[in-house]
């Protein structure tokens, strides 16, 4: 098991190391296939437009998954206990996304921390926001 971040090494107000990448249409299609979501809105621009969308979009489940991976990249495999997300806007593929987070609270008895997380566009628009509980060592 990969090492887990130490509770004593984290402070309220800490920012998680942000991740920035281009979320490609290929990756979104791979997720749609693996996640049982193979429908035009997630796989095909023209099919998505016929549903009134600007083009194919990223599934909310994928945004949830990216944020979970982001949190465990920071804290370690198996550290995530809870993740709540609100899907506020469309996340369009083939654009840069940033995953960010801030520690908001430490719970000493359980050695857990509360974290605000979000997925934002290159323009800083937060398409997905959430809160998480992460267990540290």
């Amino acid at each position, binding site marked *: 098991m990969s090492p887990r971040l130490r509770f004593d090494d984290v402070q309220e107000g800490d920012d998680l190391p942000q991740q920035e990448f281009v979320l490609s249409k290929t990756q979104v299609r791979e997720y749609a296939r*693996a996640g049982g979501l193979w429908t035009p809105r997630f796989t095909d621009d023209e099919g998505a437009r016929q549903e009134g969308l600007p083009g194919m979009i990223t599934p909310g489940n994928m945004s949830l998954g990216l944020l979970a991976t982001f949190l465990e990249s920071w804290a370690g495999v198996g550290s995530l206990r809870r*993740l*709540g997300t*609100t899907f506020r806007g469309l996340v369009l593929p083939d654009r840069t996304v940033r995953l960010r987070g801030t520690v908001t609270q430490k719970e000493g008895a359980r050695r857990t921390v509360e974290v605000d997380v979000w997925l934002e566009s290159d323009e800083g628009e937060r398409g997905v926001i959430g809160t998480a509980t992460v267990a540290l060592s």
Partner: protein
Amino acid sequence: MPVALDLEIVRQIVGQEFDHATHGPVTAEELIAFARALGETRPEYTEPGPDLIGHPTYCVRYKGRKFYPENLPKVVNVRTGFDAGKDLELGVPVRPGDMIDVRATLHDVYEKTGRSGSMYFVVIRFTMTNQRGEILAVIDNRFMHR
């Protein structure tokens, strides 16, 4: 046109389980493909073997057979809804060979008023367990209807 929904009637069916389905067995290939599609490279999620476990959000790929309870008023049209978010509480990890038992409950229905008028939120709770009765995840899925 906003839907007209009698929330008092709806609240009478809140808490009712309306669907039950079992999926699986889960394969190592499925777990690895799911994790890799999220950019995972760590061995716990991507290398076959006895230590392989599912990505923490793997369970969100499972649903029941029914989207909503049959006795939910028809003004709540599945086709007009948007996925507004998910709350995920994690239990034990999914492992290859697991069967996924999914029970769906109407957890909550509430109204919010925004700049564009009234919106209804329907919250479906999916409780997922494995063949040993261990909780894998509890997922609250919020759908928004205008």
